[in-house]
């Protein structure tokens, strides 16, 4: 980091100490508000409408009738406090409105005021409040300090998922014209160009050609990176960061090598050149579906038999949990394979079948730990058994690398901490929040590094990779210590020319 941060980065210090409550310590943090054109492109009002209170309250009522989860979650919380020390943003900032229950209460107090009897007649007694400008400001600030990672929902005795509440709140804010620039601008790009980065087809083609040259140069193998190839067996849908960003791109090279070595014909689509689906983050079913449908359209257009997702956390949530609902049925694909499949599932299967071979010694210069990405861990699955999302990536890593060590058990698998940049918060205007929110993960990484001289942390999410590249240096690590799981795979893959 060349530039010193204009906020104080907490010392990593003792492992996982719950901070005291420090009211309003993050009250200054909020992302840029979406501009008129970003809002209108998604069908939302360009700016805060005049009768926003009325519309917001009505929208809240509408959402409780559309989403059982939201209705049950708003009613059921008993304020037991189980979730209060579970959010990485609370642990990293001490701001009490970052405790999951308090974050939910920002919406719940309005729900109670307008939609429950005690809230109508005894608001003070039950903590109900009018929807005022101040409350709207709090919504905007604190629903953009939630990465929708679902860690709180693991510990809630009723499974209350703050992600659902924060998505509803963001949808309400979009509806009254107060959207977030980062998410809405990006979703607009996907609707018009097909990916978050706004890469036109030509640039994508050029990039993929360049990758072919690089791999040929480095490994002497003519690995292809096909684009829009009709009749390919596999459509690879991967986060567009894989095409450009470090360390993502080495993961993409890993997928391509696996396909090459296994003799699978595959292609990327310029129409669905994005696995990420930020429609999820803003709670907009319509936008999420519109983005998801591009994958269906591409699969039909190219006549593929399988859909495989690259390494991306929330994309895998949308892919695994929602794609069939939003864009199915996929009866036109090969029914021998799940739709969609994760690239880790593909590699794992190929390893088991002996169709590819890894030489773990190739990674002997590395000592690796694994960061479970939140959406993969708590909102999806891999393989046929519950919990496969923890087992499969670890088995793939261990096959690719001799020195693997897990972080502390209360910071991995279902208890994993968000990287701090998920849920539509991976934007520079939230860098303080992102850095502080990474603290619990950094503490666990520090601990395992001290014990096992860890050199690298592998991840299977584009957001995690970007986020860690940015925040690792704030905590005394190197930015290139974060790598793709498929970088390990690509480096260890035994390449031969039999195919």
């Amino acid at each position: 980091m060349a530039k010193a941060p204009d906020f104080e980065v907490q010392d990593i210090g003792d492992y996982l100490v719950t901070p005291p409550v420090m009211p309003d310590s993050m009250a200054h943090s909020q992302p840029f508000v979406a501009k008129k054109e970003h809002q209108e492109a998604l069908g939302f009002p360009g700016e805060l409408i005049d009768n926003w209170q009325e519309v917001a309250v009505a929208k809240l009522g509408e959402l409780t009738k559309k989403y059982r989860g939201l209705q049950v979650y708003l009613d059921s919380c008993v304020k037991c406090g189980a979730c209060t020390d579970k959010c990485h943003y609370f642990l990293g900032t001490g701001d009490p409105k970052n405790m999951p229950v308090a974050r939910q209460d920002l919406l719940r107090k309005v729900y109670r005021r307008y939609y429950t009897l005690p809230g109508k007649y005894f608001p003070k007694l039950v903590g109900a409040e009018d929807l005022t400008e101040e409350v709207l400001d709090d919504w905007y600030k604190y629903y953009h300090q939630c990465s929708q990672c679902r860690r709180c929902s693991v510990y809630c005795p009723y499974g209350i998922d703050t992600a659902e509440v924060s998505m509803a709140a963001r949808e309400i804010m979009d509806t009254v014209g107060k959207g977030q620039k980062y998410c809405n601008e990006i979703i607009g790009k996907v609707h018009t160009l097909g990916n978050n980065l706004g890469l036109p087809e030509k640039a994508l083609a050029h990039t993929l050609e360049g990758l072919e040259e690089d791999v040929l140069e480095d490994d002497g193998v003519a690995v292809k990176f096909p684009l829009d190839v009709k009749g390919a067996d596999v459509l690879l849908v991967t986060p567009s960061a894989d095409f450009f960003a470090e360390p993502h791109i080495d993961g993409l090279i890993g997928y391509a090598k696996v396909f090459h070595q296994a003799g699978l014909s595959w292609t990327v689509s310029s129409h669905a050149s994005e696995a990420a689906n930020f429609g999820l983050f803003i709670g907009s079913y319509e936008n999420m579906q519109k983005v998801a449908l591009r994958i269906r359209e591409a699969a039909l257009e190219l006549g593929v038999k399988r859909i495989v997702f690259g390494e991306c956390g929330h994309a895998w949530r949308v892919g695994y949990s929602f794609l069939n609902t939003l864009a199915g049925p996929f009866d036109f694909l090969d029914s021998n394979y799940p739709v969609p499949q994760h690239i880790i599932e593909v590699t794992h299967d190929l390893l088991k079948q002996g169709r590819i071979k890894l030489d773990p010694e190739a990674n002997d210069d590395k000592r690796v730990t694994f960061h479970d990405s939140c959406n993969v861990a708590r909102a999806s699955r891999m393989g046929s058994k519950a919990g496969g999302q923890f087992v499969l990536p670890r088995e793939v890593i261990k096959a690719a690398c001799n020195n693997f060590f897990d972080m502390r058990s209360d910071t991995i698998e279902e208890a994993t901490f968000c990287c701090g940049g998920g849920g539509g918060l991976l934007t520079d205007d939230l860098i303080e929040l992102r850095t502080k929110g990474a603290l619990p993960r950094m503490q666990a990484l520090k601990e395992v590094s001290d014990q096992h001289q860890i050199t690298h942390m592998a991840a299977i999410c584009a957001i995690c990779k970007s986020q860690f590249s940015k925040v690792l240096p704030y905590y005394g690590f190197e930015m290139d210590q974060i790598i793709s799981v498929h970088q390990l795979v690509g480096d260890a893959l035994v390449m031969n020319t039999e195919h």
Partner: protein
Amino acid sequence: MGLALSVILYVTLGVFIIGTLRRIARYASTPAPLKIPTTPAPTTRSGVVMRLGREVVLFESLFKASKWTWLFGWLFHAGLFFVLLAHLRYFTEPVWWWVALLSQFSPYFGMMMLIGLAGLLARRFLVDRVRYISAPSDYLMLVFLMVIAGSGLAMRYWLHADIVQVKEFALGLLAFDFGILSFNPILVLHLLLVAFLLLIFPFSKLLHAPGLFFSPSRNQVDNPREKRHIAAWAKSANTNSTEKSRG
């Protein structure tokens, strides 16, 4: 005395039953448009039944979250469960054998309730995070429950109520035959607070009891790839035919 209490109990019980059923109907009829179980989640229906069973009986998730909250919460709820069963002795004649057995131990269950409630209340005062999220009603509910448990215990050990008469009154309630109840302030307090909790049940956080069973993060089967999940309002938006998508 008996008549007034009877009317109050009928009315509040009516509100409780109708209000809670309406709430449950609302939960049951509101669609869950997307698959959102907190994973790892069971991949079969019977697995989900087990998961909910563990939540209801053992408070599995709370155990993962906080051992103290789990201990106090579980003590209170388990105590309440057995105390309620023991109260069946006022409504059965002859008293079922296992109810008679349970009521031998009901003071211990009452103590479990009190200890649990005291612990939960102490957390509200002592833990800064829990204090921050507590509204006046959160304290009050705990206090009311403590007074209910305390008054029950008081009548068992100290200010005895006329048990025979209470039982006649209770059986009378069941038969819509208003009985007599001589004035005992502790008993009246006990019954009125119970009536009050019944009254607020469908409008308050006490809805967590039915809510758990309708929580999609806990009651959904993890099988979205195997079985296409479509909810009512999203149906019209999800009629993708191969032809339509090509166009």
